[in-house]
C-alpha cells in the first residue's frame, strides 16, 4: 500500500514538474519519444561516465540544453560538429532533446 501511494506521489510530482517545465516557450512542442530517437545522434559522442574531450549531458537542465543548442544553431558557440548537429534541428526537435536528456540519470 505504501508502495502504491509512493508511486502515485512520484507520478503526480513528475506531471507537475513537467507541466511547469513545458510552460517554458523554448520547450513547447517537446515530444519525449522523438527526443529519445534523436538522442541517438548525440550518444555517438556524449557518454555519461566521463567529460574527457566531450561533456556528459545526461540529467542537465532542459532549458540549459535548449539554450545551448540554439546558440550552436546560430553559430554563437564555436564547435563545428555541434553547429552542424544543432543547425539541422528545428524548435520541436531541440525541445524534445532537451526534455529527454533532462530525464536521464546523471
Amino acid at each position, binding site marked *: 500500500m505504501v508502495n502504491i501511494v509512493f508511486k502515485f506521489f512520484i507520478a503526480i510530482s513528475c*506531471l507537475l514538474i513537467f507541466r511547469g517545465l513545458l510552460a517554458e516557450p523554448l520547450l513547447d512542442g517537446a515530444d519525449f519519444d522523438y527526443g*529519445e530517437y534523436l538522442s541517438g545522434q548525440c550518444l555517438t559522442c556524449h557518454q555519461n561516465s566521463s567529460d574527457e574531450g566531450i561533456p556528459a549531458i545526461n540529467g542537465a537542465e532542459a532549458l540549459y540544453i535548449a539554450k545551448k543548442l540554439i546558440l550552436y544553431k546560430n553559430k554563437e558557440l564555436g564547435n*563545428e560538429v555541434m553547429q552542424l548537429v544543432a543547425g539541422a534541428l528545428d524548435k520541436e526537435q531541440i525541445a524534445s532533446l532537451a526534455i529527454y536528456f533532462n530525464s536521464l540519470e546523471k
Partner: protein
Amino acid sequence: MNNLSRRSFVSFALASTSLLAMPAISTGSARPKVVVVGGGAGGATAARYIAKDSKGAIDVTLIEASKHYYTCFYSNLYLGGFRDYDSIGHSYNNLSANHGVNVVHDWAISVDSSARKVRLGSGATVSYDRLVLSPGIDIKYDSIDGYSVEAQTKMPHAWKSGTQVKVLRDQVLNMPKGGTFAMVPPPNPYRCPPGPYERISMVAHILKEKNPTAKIVVIDPKNKFSKQGLFMAGWEKHYPGMVEWIDNDTHGGIKNVNPETMEIETDLDTFKADVACVVPAQRAGAIAMNAGVTDGDWSPIVPASMQTKADSNIYVLGDASVASAMPKSGFSANSQAKVAANHIRGELTDSRVFPAKFSNTCWSLVATNDGIKVGANYKAGEEKIEVVDKFVSKTDEGNAKRKKTYEESIGWYNGITTDMFS
C-alpha cells in the same frame, strides 16, 4: 496546457511514469526475431538499440565470430604509439548482461532469404523476421597483381584491425636506418577515406623519433584524397621532406607488387621498400554477397530505412552498403544502425517510426596534439542519402584548436564504444 499537444503530453507523462515500472525482459517464444550479423559499429549498435528500446519485446541474436572486438578506428593511433592495443579491444558481455542480446560467437555462412534462416559455421541455423547484415569489408586480394592472402604478412594491408596492425607496427619499429616505408592506399570506394593518410602520419611520427633519415613514399591509385590539403600541410610542418605522395597520373598506374623482393612496379618506376603497407580494393563482406542483396561489390539500400533494395526483410549497414554521400566509417555505420533499429522496431512492434537522420564526423591525428576533422549531416532522399550540410577543419587554425580537436576525438572514441558495447 499552453501550446503542448495533449497527445505528446500524455505520451510524455506515460514515459516518465514507465520509469517506475521497470519492465523485465520478456522471454516468451512468440517474440519477433531479429538476427544481426557482424558486431562492429553497425551491428553492435543495431543489436543494442533494438534490444534496449524494445525492452525485451524483440528477440535479438548477434552473430559475431570474435569474442573480443578490436576497433578499426583508432588502430592507427595504436600504430603511432598513442594507444595501447588493449585499449581498442571491447567485449560483448554487456550486450547480453544489460540488454538480453543473445550473442553467438560463430560465422554466418549463408542466408536462405525465402525461409528466413541464417546458417552458421557450426551447422546450426537461426530464424529471423528481420535480418541486419553489417559485415564490413572483404579485401579483393586479386585487385593488385602479385598480392594474395599469403602476401599479407610481408605487405600487410592492416585494414581490418586485429593482428595485422600489430605486425605492421613491429615492421615499422624494426625498419633499417634510413629505409623506405611504402604505402599503397586503396582505390575508391573503401573503408575510412582519411585512414591511409592518418596511417602515413602515424608512421612518420614513429620514424621522426626513432629513424629520422627514413623516407615514406605513397603510391596512390587516386589523384586526390580526403582532407588532402590538411594532411599535406601537416606532413610539411611536422615531418618536412619525409613524405613523398605520388598520384596516379604521375606514376601512371600500379602494375604489380612483389612481396619477395618488396617491390612495387608502376609505369613510372619500380619502388623498393623495406616495409610496405598495401591496401587493395574492397567489397562488401561475403555474407552480403551470399544473401543476394548486392549489386556489384556493394549493397544498395533504401535511404529512409537501410532496408536493402533486393529484400525488405534484410537491412545492410555500414561499409557494405551503398550509402551514397556517406563515407564508409564507423561513425556512419553507428548512425545508420539507429535509423534501421527504429524502423525495425516500428515494423515488428508498431512503435513510432521517425524520419531518418544521419551524421558522420571523421577525426584524424596528424601529429601529437594535431587533430583534424571533417563532418556532415545527411538526409534520406528518394534514391540516395544526401548531404544537408558539412564542414572541414581549416589549414590556418591554431595549435590550441588542433589540440582540442584531438581531445574531442578521444571523447568520441569513448562515446561510440559506449554506444556500441555498454
